């Protein structure tokens, strides 16, 4: 454990040094994310001004849903964003560098890119959006903090598990980068309650494409809407995706071949 913490600290320092060289890039990333958040909030506010609620979710509840989804999405990017490159690394046979190191390969694959500094402002904005939504409902974040932390971390782990499964699929399919981008693209745009969708579509978003885990189920817990079912789903989802990715990794790495990289 100490070895992994030391390695993670070294990777983090290296990344911070890179960021210090490209400060403008850090500013640009956060400006772009801020722009996206503002536009989406405007969209939600205009909808709610005209219709009052979305599938029975009030203004405060929809804003909490959006804020939680954004926090999950950016928390993933902060710590485990390197998984986005996994399928390309497999396809281009760049895994050697990671497989030959005397540490767990999954650790290196998942945590080699440390974006704490880059992503902190956007995560803070996401938390602020959630607090804004909770204020409208007359709920203090401090009161629901343990539920919030549980929901967001579980959602982040499910997203990480899903991205790991998609990336590892490259051992068999050669290129799953497009599927990964599709999942990330749809996840970012998914900020409406699941109740909007017919049952079959809702089932797909809850299981096959686990988007509901990022915002819907964590919000259910925080807002006290069917919290037990939501909690069970999140725990089951984390276990399922990590078990599946473990099996895929052990079988897939046996198929990996490269002529050095």
């Amino acid at each position, binding site marked *: 454990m100490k070895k992994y913490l030391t390695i993670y600290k070294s990777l983090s320092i290296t990344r911070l040094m890179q960021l210090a060289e490209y400060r403008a890039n850090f500013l640009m990333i956060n400006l772009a994310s801020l722009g996206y958040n503002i536009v989406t909030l405007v969209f939600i506010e205009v*909808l709610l001004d005209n219709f009052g609620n979305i599938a029975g979710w009030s203004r405060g509840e929809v804003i909490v849903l959006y804020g939680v989804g954004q926090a999950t999405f950016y928390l993933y990017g902060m710590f485990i964003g390197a998984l986005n490159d996994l399928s390309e690394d497999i396809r281009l046979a760049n895994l050697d560098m990671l497989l030959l190191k005397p540490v767990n390969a999954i650790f290196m694959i998942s945590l080699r890119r440390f974006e704490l500094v880059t992503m902190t402002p956007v995560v803070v904005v996401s938390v602020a959006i959630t607090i804004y939504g909770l204020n409208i409902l007359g709920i203090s974040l401090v009161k629901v903090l343990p539920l919030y932390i549980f929901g967001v971390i579980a959602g982040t782990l499910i997203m990480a598990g899903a991205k790991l499964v998609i990336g590892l699929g490259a051992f068999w399919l050669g290129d799953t980068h497009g599927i990964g981008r599709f999942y990330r693209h749809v996840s970012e745009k998914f900020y409406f309650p699941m109740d909007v969708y017919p049952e079959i579509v809702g089932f797909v978003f809850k299981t096959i494409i686990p988007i509901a885990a990022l915002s819907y189920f964590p919000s259910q817990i925080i807002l006290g809407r069917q919290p037990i079912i939501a909690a069970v789903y999140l725990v089951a989802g984390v276990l399922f995706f990590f078990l599946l990715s473990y099996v895929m990794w052990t079988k897939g790495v046996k198929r990996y071949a490269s002529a050095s990289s």
Partner: protein
Amino acid sequence: MPSAKKYLLVAKTTLADEMAYPSRFFFSFYSDGVVLIIMYFLWRSLYAGQAEVKGLTLGSIITYYAVVFAARKLTFAKSLYRRLSGHVKRGTLVTFLLKPIDFNSYYIVSYLTKRIYQAIIVIGLIAFLTAGLHIFDAPHNLHLFVVSILLASLLNFHIYLTFGLVAFWITDSWGFVSIVGRFINILAGAVIPLAFFPNWVTNINTYLPFRHMVSTPASIYTGIFATYTAQKQILEQVTWLIIIFVLNRLLWRVALKRFDAVGN
């Protein structure tokens, strides 16, 4: 080489590049298609129990988003500012300036070729979904829509090319342009029909060109604009296109004086 032949070669090369990597287009088509489906279910849920809101029925809203989806495929020009700023930042713009081809003309031919290629696929799909499966409403004033979408495409091109010129002053400008681009999307009516915005927003928007990038052709197609209004809007599109074109050319001359490149 005669001018026309030069640009025909540019068009052929662009088309060959597009057709060599069909997955790029189909991936964006597929992922935007899922967003369209999400919008369909959202609006269906919002309209539950209501026939009309702000003069718009559910059918016209769904058709509006389908046209916005198609219009974005036909008018997407955001990557232009990224490409131009990339050329400026790396100094590779000098390779274009030394060639016997006008930079802006090169890009407009390349851009229109890609749009036409994608238009054939998108129009085919929309026509099938409208006439075959009756998912979308039939078009109003189709001839005016065609004129309007062409003008919108050119307007998108020139607006984003003008934004790309920011790169001559600010090297790392993509975040700034990205945030501005998001606001343009709202004012263009690409996120939500402009009818749903408060009056003060629509009043300000009448003095800006952005609604003509997406909302105007979509509103002509869905019949939100009657024929006379549609014709007026098209005249406004032409006016704005001329203004932005002239502005772009003026800024281009000023920007080139600031440009430096070493080697390449």
